[in-house]
Structure formats: C-alpha cells, structure tokens
C-alpha cells in the first residue's frame, strides 16, 4: 500500500516508498535489504514521518502512532517527535541516525558500512571530534570515500555516531600502518551521541 499523506508540513509515507532509506540499506545489504526492511517493520513499524517539509528529522513509527498523529494534527496539536529518529536529509543526502544503524546491526547481526573505535577515539568522537587513524580498530565494508558510515565502540559494538569516511577502504588499510597518518582524521564527525549533552538543557527531576 502506498500511502503518502501531506498534513501541513508533515509527510507520512510507507517505509518501502521512502527511497533515500531504501537506497542506503540496499547499498549496505545488497540482496538482503528486504530482510532488513522486514525486520524494521517488525521491530518498529512501517510508517515514515517527516515533521518538516525538508525532512530534517525523519522518524519511523507504527500505524497506531499514525492514527493518533492524524488526530493531533486535525486538532492543531504540535507534534515534536514520535517512534524512532532514523536520520535526516542533509544537503539532499540521507544521513542515518546512530539509532537506526544500531537497530539494523543488532537485528540482522551483520555490521556493514562501519568502523569500530578504540577507547580514546570513542571519547573524542563523543565530544564531537573526528575519528583519527590511531583510534581506528576494525573495518566493516562496504566502505567508500564519501560514504556516511557508523562509528562503533569496540567494547560493546554500540553505534556512538555517524560520520563521513575520508578515504576508500584499500587506502585506509595502507595508511593505517603508516605512523605519519596516526593523527590524521579518517571519519569526519557528522552526528554523535554527545549531542544529548551538548545541545540539551539539563532538567534533572
């Protein structure tokens, strides 16, 4: 069922019809992409919601939420968020959230399009800094220069953020062994979990 609704600035689509996400998942999982989509639908829901025209914030949610979303919007209630934040469209490109990637990795038990980081790299990345060669631990292809990839904590494989890969996989393998590159960035920070400290007013209750 293809059901695109436009309500004020809010856009609701079926998961399969949201091409930026489908393209991203296909690139990572090739033929298995349908399994990933099925898992997302089963675990979270099948409806994509953008809360603004430009899809700066994209959410995945279930039908039950959409029923209430409809109701809220009819009554002019402002909706701030719902379901799970799965990413943003930044400069016409889909940037997945750490939340989405972690759900995919944990559900399908296959990490793709990611690198893991050593302890100091995790700490620095969570401070909003780039990941350096010296903090690079493992590589999970496909990895091409310019890709938006996940950065994992090597200790628990949780996704601590996403960033833009600055070299191709083959070149990384070579440069990683070269001491002159150890303090050079390899993943430019795009989004990390430290944002919950940096951008948020703290209201402790």
């Amino acid at each position: 069922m293809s059901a695109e609704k436009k309500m004020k600035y809010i856009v609701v689509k079926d998961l399969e019809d949201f091409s930026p996400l489908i393209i991203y998942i296909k690139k990572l999982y090739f033929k298995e992409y349908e399994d990933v989509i099925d898992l997302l639908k089963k675990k979270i829901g099948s409806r994509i919601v953008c809360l603004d025209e430009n899809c700066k914030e994209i959410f995945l949610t279930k039908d039950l939420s959409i029923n209430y979303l409809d109701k809220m919007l009819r009554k002019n209630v402002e909706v701030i968020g719902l379901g799970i934040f799965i990413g943003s469209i930044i400069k016409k490109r889909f940037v997945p959230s750490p939340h989405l990637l972690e759900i995919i990795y944990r559900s399908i038990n296959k990490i793709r399009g990611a690198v893991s980081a050593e302890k100091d790299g995790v700490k620095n990345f969570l401070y909003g800094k780039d990941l350096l060669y010296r903090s690079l631990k493992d590589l999970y292809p496909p990895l091409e220069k310019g890709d938006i990839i996940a950065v994992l904590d090597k200790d628990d494989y949780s996704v601590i953020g996403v960033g833009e890969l600055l070299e191709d996989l083959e070149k990384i393998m070579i440069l990683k062994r070269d001491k002159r590159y150890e303090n050079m960035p390899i993943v430019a920070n795009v989004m990390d979990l430290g944002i919950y400290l940096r951008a948020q007013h703290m209201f402790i209750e």
Partner: protein
Amino acid sequence: MVLKIDFREILRIFNERLRIDQSIIDLANKYGYLPYMISRYIDMLGFDETIRLLEAFDNKNMYKPVIRCNDLRCSCRKITESLERLGFKLSPIEWSPYSYKILRSSSTPSIGATHEYLKGCYYLYRDAASLIPSIALDPRPGDLILDTCASPGGKASHILMLMRDEGLLIANDISRSRLSALKANLERMRFTSYIITRYDGRRIHEIFNEEIPKIILDAPCSAEGGIMFDPGRKRRTSYEDLMKLVSREIELLSSSVEALAPGGYLLYSTCSIAPEENEFVVSKILEHYKEKIEIIHIRNNIWDRGLRKFLGIEFDPGVEKCIRIWPHRHSMEGFFICLLRKR
C-alpha cells in the same frame, strides 16, 4: 465540564484559617522561611516535628541521586559494574527494580556524562521519590497512556520501560524548552512507542474526550518538597503565588479527568508537601465529579498516607489512600501521589 476555581477564592479559604504569631515569625526567621510556610508545617506536624522537617530541608547530604537502568537496551549488571569501575558506589533501591542510589560519585565523568548515559543505558534522577508515580500507575505492555505534563521525561521513560516499549505513550508538555529535554531523553534511551506533543495540559480534554485508559499528571507545582535542592524556595513563593498554582493544578487535573476513559486510572502527583496542592486539589475534583471519580488504594505504600485535615479543613476521607513522602521521615524529596479511577 472542566473545573476552574479562581485563586482568590482559594486564597480566601486558607487565609482566614492561617495563624501567624510571634513564635512562628521567630522560627521562620531562624530558618529563613516565609512565616506562612512555618505556620502550615506546625499545623501538619506539630512544633517538634516541624524542626525535624526544617533540619531535613537544610541537610542536602541526606538525599542521593538515583539512576534507573534501561534494561530494554543495556544489561543492568554491566551498567552497575561499569559505573563502579569509574568510582561510583551504588546501592539498589528495594521497592523499584533496576534503580540504584548513588552513594558516592566519581570526580570525572559526572553521572550525567558517562558513555553509558549517552548510550541511553540509564536515566538520572536527583532523588528516588520521582520513581514512585510511574510504579503506582502500573503500566503494562500494550497500554495507551497519556503523560499530560511529561517533561523532562523521567516518568515518561519509566512508563515506557514498564510498558516494555509496547503500546503507545502520548508524552505532552507545553514548554518548548522543556520539550527539547523530553525529546532528547526519549531518543537517547531509544524508545519507539511514543508521540511527543505540545499542548496546554489545561485543555487536553479538547483532544481526548473520555478515551485514554491511563493518564499520569505530574503537575507543575510549587516544589515545596524540594527545598533541599532549591533553598531559594524558602522565600520565593508567596501564599498568593501558591494559590495561583493550586488553581492551575485543579484545572489541569480536571482536564485530565475529562480525557480519561470510563474505568480508566489517573495518577496525580506533585513534588510538593503543600496540602493545598495535593489533598485539597483532589478533594475539589472528587466534589466536582461526585460519584464519577474515586480514589484507589495504592499497593505497597510503605510511606505515609494523605492528610485528612489541614488548618481545620476536612478533606475527602479517600485522600488517606494517597501517598505522602516527607523528607525528614523518608529521606526523600517531599512528594504526593494519588491514584484516581473513573467509574
């Protein structure tokens, strides 16, 4: 119809019963309070126990911050082990699963800045009393629940955890800045079964007409139970200001009652020890809705019961089924929790 009572009318009810003599003024000056506050404490507790309450408000070390593990996302055992490695000393809270008092903190990182915190493995509270309202509502997987004033998300995230993130929580608030904290907390903890909305809680019945089976209203209050965290509160809120809050609390609770489905449960709580904001508000609602609403006994009340009488005013007998937390008796922030049911 939503109950609205002008604050001046409420002020008149209480003002004419309030007695302030020189001994009260002297005690208020000694501890730095407005005299009306001391007068009320003596009415509720007597002189000797009032001194214990005032001493408890002045002793911030009595209260410990609390974490509640998000067991849907992380192993609680691993979190506690990791925090202990960082230098924190934790002690489990018997009456709240997955919850720990922080007896000793590490100098760095702070408990609100660890990697585990950023990964959504736990929620941080300044005090354990905030855990009680969500437990008392008894959320179950698949429930539809409205949190009328949800920011910053301590109760909302607790409810979602107890629902096992199945069903739907409508987490509403009116304050834009506080909503950003709510959104950050629910996102950080990776819950999926929620909608965050911005609407005036006093008009929530305009959206939901007798259709929500479970509602929690942790009303914005005077915070008279949290003076240990905010000593400025000793002199900041005049009796007239308090009555304005009472008037708003009545309206908020009444609107939530209207939104509640028949047979549904509504949990009302405040972080205040003021009977005006608690037993009085609930009694007014019972009076307004008559047989439609009843107070339900909350299981496992190991704390105190609601007050039947205050400044000579008799409240509805049902308020004894509510929970009262006193700082000097329970070593927690002052709180009031009351469970209502719509017939």
